[in-house]
């Protein structure tokens, strides 16, 4: 029994050796994008409901947000910064049977959110590195309403977290390599390791939002142009789209490599929101910090690069 298990293990490692090399040689793609937009899902929103015997309820909504996103990536540096500033106004009128008028609650809310992360490798892209990861949410809400009618007190919510530290090694996501191999397999074409790697880079850039954020409406066209040019199959766009999007060809996420890292996290919270139904009148600032450490080792050992598919 032990000999059979040993044989199975050796067979797995030998058969997957070529595939593992493809995973190991996968380079982190180099690209960046910068995007900023103004949006309002409800620049003007109005809902009126009249149910028999229950009177008329009217709700007005108005909001506007400014959103910003930046991402940069190369084998040594990965950084992103996303932020949004939004304003929302809401007014609700419900019937007041005592006064034969309406109870009114108005809410004006300002919301600022920022999230960023940055990591930098020093000498080589799988060696010593520094990382930081932070987010902050600041929300301020003011309520006014009909005198005598209850409405919540003003909301204040400030939550900020930052984690920074250092480590050694790298775990690389390699699903795009498996996807490139699936394309080659399904199209029945033989591709060199270099072309497979270039295909994987294009797929990974697409999955990380590069084409959508850079080319907007033309994202799919640019993506398919680059992909089909690499394998010289410009007339097979529909088939490649099917391979990339159909559930028949989906593959699970794969990672390759190892890393050990440690850092210090600082968390700050000042909020009077107890839950979505209740707001406290008082708020106090809380600080907390924690030590963080992690070790991760991962090696795909499937019999072939495209995975075990039925």
């Amino acid at each position, binding site marked *: 029994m032990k000999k059979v298990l040993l044989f199975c293990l050796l067979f797995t490692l030998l058969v997957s050796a070529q595939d593992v090399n493809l995973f190991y040689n996968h380079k982190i793609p180099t690209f960046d994008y910068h995007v900023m937009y103004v949006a309002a899902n409800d620049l*003007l929103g109005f809902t009126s409901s009249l149910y*028999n015997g229950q009177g008329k309820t009217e709700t007005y909504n108005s909001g506007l947000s400014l959103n910003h996103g930046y991402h940069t990536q190369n084998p040594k540096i990965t950084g992103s910064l996303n932020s949004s500033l939004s304003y929302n106004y809401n007014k609700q009128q419900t019937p007041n049977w005592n006064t034969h008028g309406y109870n009114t609650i108005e809410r004006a809310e300002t919301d600022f959110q920022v999230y960023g992360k940055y990591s930098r490798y020093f000498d080589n892209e799988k060696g010593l590195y520094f990382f930081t990861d932070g987010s902050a949410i600041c929300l301020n809400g003011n309520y006014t309403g009909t005198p005598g009618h209850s409405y919540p007190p003003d909301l204040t919510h400030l939550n900020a977290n930052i984690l920074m530290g250092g480590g050694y090694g790298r775990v690389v996501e390699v699903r795009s390599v498996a996807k490139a191999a699936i394309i080659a397999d399904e199209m029945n074409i033989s591709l060199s390791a270099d072309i497979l790697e270039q295909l994987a880079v294009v797929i990974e850039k697409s999955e990380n939002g590069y084409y959508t954020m850079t080319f907007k409406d033309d994202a799919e066209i640019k993506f398919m142009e680059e992909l089909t040019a690499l394998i010289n199959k410009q007339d097979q766009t529909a088939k490649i789209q099917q391979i990339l999007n159909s559930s028949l060809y989906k593959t699970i996420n794969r990672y390759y490599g190892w890393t050990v890292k440690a850092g210090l996290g600082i968390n700050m919270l000042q909020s009077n929101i107890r839950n979505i139904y209740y707001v406290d009148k008082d708020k106090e600032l809380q600080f907390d910090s924690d030590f963080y450490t992690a070790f991760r080792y991962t090696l795909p050992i499937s019999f072939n690069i495209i995975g075990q598919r039925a």
Partner: protein
Amino acid sequence: MNCNFSRVFAFDSGNYSNFSAGVYTQYMFLNRAALYANAAYEKREYSNYMSYEVPKYVSSAWESEITNIHLGFKYFIF
């Protein structure tokens, strides 16, 4: 009578063109009394094997009305 007028044009926030905007409108009116107008009485059987003709609940004013208007946009500065 059931009247439903909806979705003249929907705003799609998933659209990544440089500028997209839309209006969503819906009006719904429902009068439940009309549903009962043809049979104002129904036969009910009870556990003592007796049956009775009982009037159905008929209201001439069971109405509900919902109006929705939404206007939105999205503009990419860059």
